[in-house]
């Protein structure tokens, strides 16, 4: 039973380049969450989808960040014009409908912006 899959595990970009991070939720899970982890801020909520529909993006930076869920088997987080302060581990989590507070996390993507 595969857990949440995130690719790539590591990504290095140059300042100003675009980064796209991928998440495949656990099969049958209808909710997908994105979080960001840094040493200074800790783990922070970014955005949340239920049944592919965006529900809450209150944690997303207003510029350069966007997330989509084009089908039930994957979600993407895109960062345009990456900046060094975007360097972090980006974590995706999924949960069953009706049990959204019990979240299962993927291994994360470590993004380094040079």
């Amino acid at each position, binding site marked *: 039973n595969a857990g949440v899959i995130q690719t790539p595990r590591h990504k290095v970009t140059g300042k100003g380049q675009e980064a796209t991070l991928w998440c495949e939720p656990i099969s049958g899970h209808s909710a997908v969450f994105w979080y960001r982890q840094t040493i200074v801020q800790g783990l922070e*909520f970014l955005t*949340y989808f239920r049944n592919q529909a965006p529900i809450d993006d209150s*944690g997303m930076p207003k510029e350069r960040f966007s997330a989509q869920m084009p089908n039930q088997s994957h979600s993407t987080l895109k960062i345009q014009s990456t900046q060094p302060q975007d360097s972090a581990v980006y974590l995706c989590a999924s949960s069953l409908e009706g049990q959204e*507070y*019990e979240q*299962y*996390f993927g*291994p994360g993507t*470590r993004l380094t912006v040079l």
Partner: protein
Amino acid sequence: GDKVKQSPSALSLQEGTNSALRCNFSIAATTVQWFLQNPRGSLINLFYLVPGTKENGRLKSAFDSKESYSTLHIRDAQLEDSGTYFCAAGGGSNYKLTFGKGTLLTVTP
């Protein structure tokens, strides 16, 4: 201030000893999850709690929503218990988890 305060921030235990970690909430938490982040960075689910207690092997956790705290007890600590323990509070309608800053646990022989 921090909405979820974890204590202690770091802890060193000798193998075979017991200890407790704590989270205090200044938000209206209705659920709590405890995770262990291993050296590779993966968040491993330990417990999901509504108010009450759960036990799994050498680990036991309790959540009191009225007093706004949760505890994680580790009995007979083993080397493989080393890592960073996070608690995360859930509450409200948006389903986001609010994390504490973590407790770095080091178990020594």
